């Protein structure tokens, strides 16, 4: 399904998080939103998911305006946002809540088709054998794959991911992104992910949307995403790193594993 965003604006009091942004993601393509912290990436994704109301503007899926339709939109979060007390399988099953009545879901009486769907989703992300395992006993990467499985079980028309690998070490990040990308391709899902690791973004993204201060700076393909474009999106400090090819200084975890990686592919 083609995602069309038209003149989307979000203001928090006097602060404008998103200002009249418009872009289109073709059906089945894997798009990446790039931008510094505070550029408006999370706000955009939260609006698309219905977790935040936009101040103005519209979102269309195949020309049809969507308003508050969370069940159609699967979301993968940076911190996984899984239910710790449940197993991987039960977490995946929460993806069916939108089509299961309250009492049925409370008694864990989902239809057989949905149960199979949950297991299929876990198989897709390579966690079928760990289905019965409690998510708290899993690694960050595995938990994120359960998060992807939960989004898949929703059978979404659009798949969103807000910094899905920001809190993972590089090798787990690579694994999670590989599963994520393969899944999206296999199911021909239109996907929009915000990523701040440019090397990962370039490796997995097909289309790129660059945000800066709540405005769209760039929309284009991988080939069009040149260092000068990145310079525009990320500003001067990172640009120096891009040019020198040095390791970036920003890191999302104390060990420095999940560094921004901006310099890696340039």
């Amino acid at each position, binding site marked *: 399904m083609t995602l069309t965003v038209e003149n989307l604006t979000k203001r928090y009091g006097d602060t404008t998080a998103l200002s009249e942004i418009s872009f289109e993601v073709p059906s089945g393509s894997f798009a990446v939103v790039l931008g510094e912290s505070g550029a408006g990436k999370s706000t955009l994704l939260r609006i698309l998911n219905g977790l935040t109301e936009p101040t103005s503007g519209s979102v269309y899926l195949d020309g049809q305006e969507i308003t508050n339709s*969370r069940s*159609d*939109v699967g979301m993968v979060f940076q911190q996984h946002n899984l239910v710790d007390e*449940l197993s991987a399988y039960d977490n995946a099953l929460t*993806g069916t*809540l*939108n089509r299961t009545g309250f009492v049925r879901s409370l008694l864990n009486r989902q239809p057989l088709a949905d149960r199979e769907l949950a297991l299929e989703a876990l198989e897709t992300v390579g966690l079928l054998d760990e289905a019965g395992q409690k998510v708290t006993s899993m690694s960050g990467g595995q938990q994120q794959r359960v998060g992807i499985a939960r989004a898949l079980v929703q059978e979404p028309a659009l798949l969103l991911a807000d910094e899905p690998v920001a809190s993972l070490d590089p090798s787990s990040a690579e694994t999670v992104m590989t599963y994520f990308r393969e899944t999206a391709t296999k199911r021909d899902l239109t996907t929009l992910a915000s990523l701040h690791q440019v090397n990962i973004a370039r490796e997995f993204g097909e289309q790129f949307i660059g945000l800066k201060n709540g405005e769209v700076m760039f929309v284009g393909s991988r080939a069009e995403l040149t260092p000068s474009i990145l310079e525009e999106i990320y500003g001067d400090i990172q640009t120096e790193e891009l040019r020198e090819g040095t390791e970036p200084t920003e890191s999302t975890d104390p060990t420095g594993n999940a560094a921004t990686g901006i310099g890696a592919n340039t």
Partner: protein
Amino acid sequence: MSADPDSLVGRLRRRFSGGSQGDSAIKQQHSELKRARLVRRLSQSALLAGIVILFIGSLRAAGFWSTEWIEYWPQFVDALAEYFPPKLYFGLIPFVDLGQYYQFMKEAGLVGEAGITLAIALAGTIMGAPLALLFGILGNERVTPFPLNFVFRGVMSVIRSIPSLVWALIYVPLGGITPVTATLAIGTDTVGELGRLLTDELEEIDDGPIEGIRSTGANKPQVITFGMISQIVRPFIAWAMFILENNVRSAVSLGIIGAGGLGVTLTIEEQTFQFTNMMATILFIVLLVMSVEMISQRTRAYLREDDDVEQLSLYQRIVGFPKRMSDSVLK
């Protein structure tokens, strides 16, 4: 203190004025600090004097100024010998005659009485827990919009402000003070106590799972169940065990006003001045309450995987027992 009053007045004046204009910065700062210290000392002394006056006033109100209790003091000393009947073991080691205690425990069937006390506490806790869960959840602002959530919080506050002893009195029309009314009293008290703890627990839950469940398009009851309640299941069981501990102590207290169990035995022996038997009953109460405490704390430690659970050593259990007992009596 100086012997010369003029000099004292002069010093005090100097301290309060904070030094003269011509002093150096260091001297001025020094006298400023001295002045601050003097003010602090005076206010501390005033506070201490206030506490002493309050203490004396309270003792007077409690009747400590009458001589009655001093006259009875020798009687209390005599009773001590009955509380702890002495015996010479092996003809030379003096100790408390434990045989007498054991004899009474057997004769009075204290095991059965303890069973009744435990049953009252257990039934009351299980009865009150689901309602506590319901009120605790409904008292949360994320579930019930402000100010409606304060209706539920208010109900819990009112319940809590009434001690379980008084709740038992309120239920008297249901057939006097019986194990049934005691159970109802403890159940009611549990709603207030446990509900409040759960409301606090819900304030601290993680937003992540709630957002995760919301993002799937789940409806509000589903978000509450899977996103919120799932996070408090363990704390709920842990707190319920903690409340059970308190409720066992409350059940003993309710027994004293006639609700059955060990409390009744204790009253009967007290009224017939059988102090040795009374102490035997007290020891049995200690045994019961400490056993429940130990089971409860083990369970809580297991549930919370050893984090933030107060772990009482055997010493703390014994030393802190009277305080915990009296705390529950007044609940």
